[in-house]
């Protein structure tokens, strides 16, 4: 725990140092929590935190020719320091993001409490806006990095037969950037106005008084950095660290999904960072990016923002595609149907994702001639996405379907994400979007895609790999109940939202017309039930991680490489170096093997 305390000390020290230095440089007048001071303080504090947690001992010392130091032994405390083992980083990510999801879920419950009545009964509009903004950004963060950070880090090296990620220290760094981000985001509502939602549209986010928005910007920029570094690591790992014989055509589908999502996150995240830097500059340096009077414009923000934030939804769902297809394949005990087409679909989605952003802007007042092409491109994304659905049902067809908790999650993912996908067409279509944009129809749509797509992948993956990660089995009966609970509950909560949407309820409001109250009461009640279901999930996992029955190395009898090692895997992943000799999903062909373990593997390079 020592590094953690050191990190806190250095982080706070860094913040104070940075703030005072900025204060002195700015003329030593004015308050110590002015915008520049907070900004510089956050950066310095972030650096202090990273060095304190172990960045200095493990890494920084090398820059000055000193030998790096290790911080401690490999016991439970390794989860609380800068640890370069990808499995530790994966678990850190998983636990941290399930915790963040819990906080975001509590925010959702608070929002539904307020929305059960048409007026402002439970919280003020100001509080509601803060809670809503917080729920938005926390859940976006969970969806962006939840699967990629946890399963991506934990499983990609195992699945491709590598000992670790290509850049283990960068990996640890990208996780340890997260806690300061969480601190910044969670303290943002306490420090003055924080009401611009996760999209932070200017000029609202520029004009909002107080430091909340500043911390939000800095926090999200740091999160973006973490996301970029994580993606970079995955791309490099998959390209250079594959075991002998692990050709591109033999990569498990989850690796492909992580690879595709990483491509997006490495390239496009910079645009979100750039937009937030612009807001920050408008606030602290008096630039005029979004000041209409000086000639700037908010359309600039919207274009740049959605240039990242639309591809971002594929960072969220692509890994979940991978997880779910992986689960469906292993529990149907059939080869993944149309493997090559799915890989092609992933890459097509990556390509298309970068050229569809303006469908978020049909009502924004941008030039009319943009509408038709962006509608066409957006609707074209349904074609590669359709291939993923084909793979799901094609794999299940005639399989030997073992209906476990992860499998229920995966099939629920097919069903729910399909609703999200189909309602997406309503937003791609200009005519309907002009009415439905910014209504509860959108809210329902993206909750079906993000919960149905990304979060259900995260939950399903958690069940599926739980025995591998902890070495113990979760409670199957409770797991099944929870999986059904989520799959069905999602529909009960969010289907009525389509109705309130078309009946004129716009999103991000604490008050709404009284005639919509009955339906909202129902939604709120259902939401509380859905939220309560998550206690089942947390309880099941916590209890099982400690008291669950010991799991065998391969409880699912699955074929991919991570199941060929002990549960949990040894430090170097593979006691013997793997050599891949076949496709990962050769179910139903007698004698087919995915990989053999041998000591001679390394010489093949």
């Amino acid at each position, binding site marked *: 725990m020592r590094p953690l305390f050191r990190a806190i000390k250095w982080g706070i020290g860094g913040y104070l140092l940075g703030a005072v230095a900025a204060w002195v440089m700015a003329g030593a007048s004015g308050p110590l929590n002015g915008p520049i001071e907070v900004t510089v303080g956050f950066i310095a504090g972030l650096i202090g935190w990273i060095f304190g947690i172990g960045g200095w001992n493990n890494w920084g010392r090398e820059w000055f020719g000193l030998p790096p130091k290790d911080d401690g032994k490999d016991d439970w405390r390794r989860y609380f320091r800068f640890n370069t083992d990808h499995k530790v980083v994966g678990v850190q990510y998983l636990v941290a993001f399930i915790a963040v999801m819990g906080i975001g879920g509590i925010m959702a419950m608070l929002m539904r409490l307020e929305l059960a009545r048409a007026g402002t009964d439970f919280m003020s509009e100001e509080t509601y806006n803060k809670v809503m903004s917080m729920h938005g950004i926390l859940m976006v963060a969970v969806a962006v990095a939840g699967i990629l950070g946890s399963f991506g880090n934990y499983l990609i090296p195992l699945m491709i037969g590598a000992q670790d990620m290509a850049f283990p220290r960068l990996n640890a760094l990208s996780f340890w950037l997260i806690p300061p981000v969480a601190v910044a985001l969670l303290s943002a509502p306490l420090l003055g106005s924080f009401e611009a939602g996760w999209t932070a549209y200017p000029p609202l986010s520029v004009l909002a008084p107080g430091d909340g928005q500043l911390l939000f910007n800095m926090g999200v920029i740091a999160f973006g950095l973490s996301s970029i570094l994580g993606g970079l690591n995955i791309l490099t790992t998959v*390209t250079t660290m*594959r075991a002998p014989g692990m*050709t*591109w055509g033999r990569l498990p589908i989850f690796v492909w999904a992580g690879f595709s999502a990483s491509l997006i996150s490495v390239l496009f995240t910079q645009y979100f960072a750039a937009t937030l830097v612009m807001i920050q500059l408008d606030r602290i340096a008096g630039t005029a990016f979004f000041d209409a009077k000086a000639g700037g414009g908010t359309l600039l923000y919207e274009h740049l923002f959605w240039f990242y934030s639309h591809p971002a939804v594929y960072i969220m769902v692509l890994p979940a595609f991978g997880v779910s297809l992986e689960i469906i394949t292993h529990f149907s005990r059939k080869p993944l149907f149309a493997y090559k087409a799915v890989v092609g679909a992933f890459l097509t989605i990556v390509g298309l994702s970068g050229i569809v952003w303006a469908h978020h802007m049909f009502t924004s007042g941008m030039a009319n001639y943009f509408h038709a092409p962006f509608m066409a491109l957006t609707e074209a994304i349904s074609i590669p996405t359709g291939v993923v659905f084909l793979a799901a049902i094609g794999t299940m067809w005639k399989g030997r379907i073992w209906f476990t908790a992860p499998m229920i999650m995966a099939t629920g993912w097919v069903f729910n994400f399909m609703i999200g996908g189909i309602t997406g067409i309503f937003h791609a279509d200009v005519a309907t979007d002009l009415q439905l944009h910014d209504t509860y129809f959108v809210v329902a749509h993206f909750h079906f895609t993000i919960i149905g797509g990304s979060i259900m992948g995260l939950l399903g993956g958690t069940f599926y790999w739980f025995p591998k990660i902890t070495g113990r089995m979760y409670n199957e009966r409770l797991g099944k109940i929870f999986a059904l609970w989520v799959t069905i509950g999602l529909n009960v909560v969010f289907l009525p939202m389509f109705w309130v949407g078309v009946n004129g309820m716009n999103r991000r409001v604490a008050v709404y017309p009284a005639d919509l109250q009955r339906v909202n009461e129902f939604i709120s009640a259902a939401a509380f039930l859905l939220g309560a279901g998550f206690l089942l999930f947390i309880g099941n996992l916590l209890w099982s991680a400690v008291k669950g029955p010991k799991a065998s190395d391969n409880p699912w009898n699955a074929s991919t490489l991570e199941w060929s090692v002990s549960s949990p895997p040894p430090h170097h992943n593979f006691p013997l170096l793997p050599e891949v000799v076949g496709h990962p999903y050769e179910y139903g062909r007698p004698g087919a093997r995915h990989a053999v373990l041998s000591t001679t593997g390394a*010489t093949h*390079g």
Partner: protein
Amino acid sequence: MADTSERQRFDELTTEIHGRPLGQRLRIGLLVMVALAVLTLVEYAIAVEVEHPLLPLLPFAALKFVLILEYFMHFSAVLGKGDH
């Protein structure tokens, strides 16, 4: 011996650095620098002469971009050695 072949492979992977003798490197560097300097001068001259020279300047910037990318940063080396 396995070790020598690995050594070779390691060298291969880093040829872009280890391959060429110093004299050849210096020649290439000097040539590229002269080219860049000339291009910059021409760029500047065009900008002085032409009003809003967006189109005429683009090829010069692109050429400089490619020169640096290829001769200073050895970009093609990264494409040349794909997988194993």
